[in-house]
């Protein structure tokens, strides 16, 4: 009898180790991909806020008289700090989820650290906070269902972070969290929006595009005011050309962020089938990382980097 228990224990150990090995590589790749998407999305918010700020400051040149406001207060952020904190919490949740999966399959110490406990608690608090819904309702056409689903996602990830789990739970964890990952990504994708000429214009891409339109029109004024053939005209036309390219590239960065968030959801879905179809997961992650690399290069070129 004791021998049977021994064999069973060894078999269980082998099964767990096999599960560990099958998932470990893919989970580690998913973690890298999640980090890239989270950074890219944070970059998107910074890009919009910085561009709107730049346009507001430059528009001062068209106004007469002295500047009589405190510059530190005269230019509030387009996406306010309070709203940015909420979006950062959503992104922290995605990142923490990927890290938690990594801890299940990795050999790192899975004991809860203070930071994780604090994050889990803040995610749970935010999921119940009316400010979450209000913050995203400020972005037109985000539905109550979407914010409710994201709140449920935050609560689920908060719970996962503090639960004692083992590697064998992984398939069930992935399956249970697929809708939560989709809900968080959907909310962020929706907020990024589309350009004014699209069928569903507005939100961050709409605002960024319109801000560049204003910058372009202001620059056209400078061009028109310069004498033909002068160095000043040459420089102002070159600046105009670079703004045209910047508008296109900035919008492409936001569209790329939407696409990366979609690919993160697809990669998570592919994780569910990683045992039966490992190639599918590899394809999803490779596409995501290629896109993230492009975004990284774009953000690295922005002023102040």
């Amino acid at each position, binding site marked *: 009898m004791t021998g049977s228990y021994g064999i069973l224990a060894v078999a269980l150990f082998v099964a767990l180790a096999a599960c560990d090995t099958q998932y470990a590589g893919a989970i580690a790749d998913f973690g890298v991909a999640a980090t890239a998407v989270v950074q890219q999305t944070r970059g998107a918010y910074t890009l919009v806020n910085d561009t709107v700020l730049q346009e507001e400051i430059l528009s001062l040149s068209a106004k007469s008289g002295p500047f009589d406001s405190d510059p530190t207060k005269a230019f509030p952020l387009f996406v306010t700090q309070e709203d940015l904190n909420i979006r950062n919490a959503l992104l922290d949740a995605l990142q923490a989820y990927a890290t938690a999966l990594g801890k299940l399959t990795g050999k790192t110490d899975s004991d809860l650290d203070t930071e994780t406990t604090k994050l889990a608690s803040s995610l749970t608090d935010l999921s119940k906070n009316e400010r979450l819904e209000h913050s995203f309702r400020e972005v*037109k056409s985000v539905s109550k269902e979407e914010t409710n689903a994201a709140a449920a996602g935050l609560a689920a990830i908060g719970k996962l972070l503090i639960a004692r789990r083992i590697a064998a739970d992984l398939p069930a964890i992935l399956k249970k969290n697929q809708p939560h990952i989709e809900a968080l990504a959907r909310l962020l994708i929706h907020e990024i929006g589309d350009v004014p000429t699209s069928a569903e214009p507005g939100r961050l891409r709409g605002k960024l595009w*319109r801000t560049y*339109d*204003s910058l372009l*029109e202001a620059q056209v004024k400078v061009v028109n005011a310069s004498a033909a053939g002068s160095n000043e005209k040459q420089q102002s036309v070159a600046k105009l050309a670079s703004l045209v390219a910047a508008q296109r590239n900035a919008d492409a960065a936001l569209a790329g962020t939407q696409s990366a968030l979609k690919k993160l959801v697809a990669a998570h879905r592919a994780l569910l089938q990683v045992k039966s179809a490992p190639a599918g997961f590899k394809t999803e992650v490779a596409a995501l990382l290629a896109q993230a690399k492009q975004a990284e290069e774009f953000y690295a070129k922005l002023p102040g980097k």
Partner: protein
Amino acid sequence: MPSQDDLSALQKKFYTLYNSLKDAYWAASTVESKDQIHGAEDLVNQILDMLDREDIESDNSAMADLTKSLKDSIKDLSDLQNKLDAIVHNVSIANTAIQAINDALVAATKIADGA
């Protein structure tokens, strides 16, 4: 209070107007006429920002701000509408912008008068 549908319709009309004014801006040939169109674009931009960001249908103060901006814009947009034929020589672009202003004014008046 206007419904969510009324506000969505208003947003669509103002985005269409925004795109038409952009075309008119580039088609206008003088600095003065570009400035006039740019002024209207600023108003439209301001209203689009409000519609994009505010939880208007449940916020009385935001709704009051929107109504005020709409009332202010109605006169200026009507003025521009009357001048567009003269300042934009491309007939097709001018007509499209005139029609877009008309549609936006109908939607804006509905909200401004109903508030």
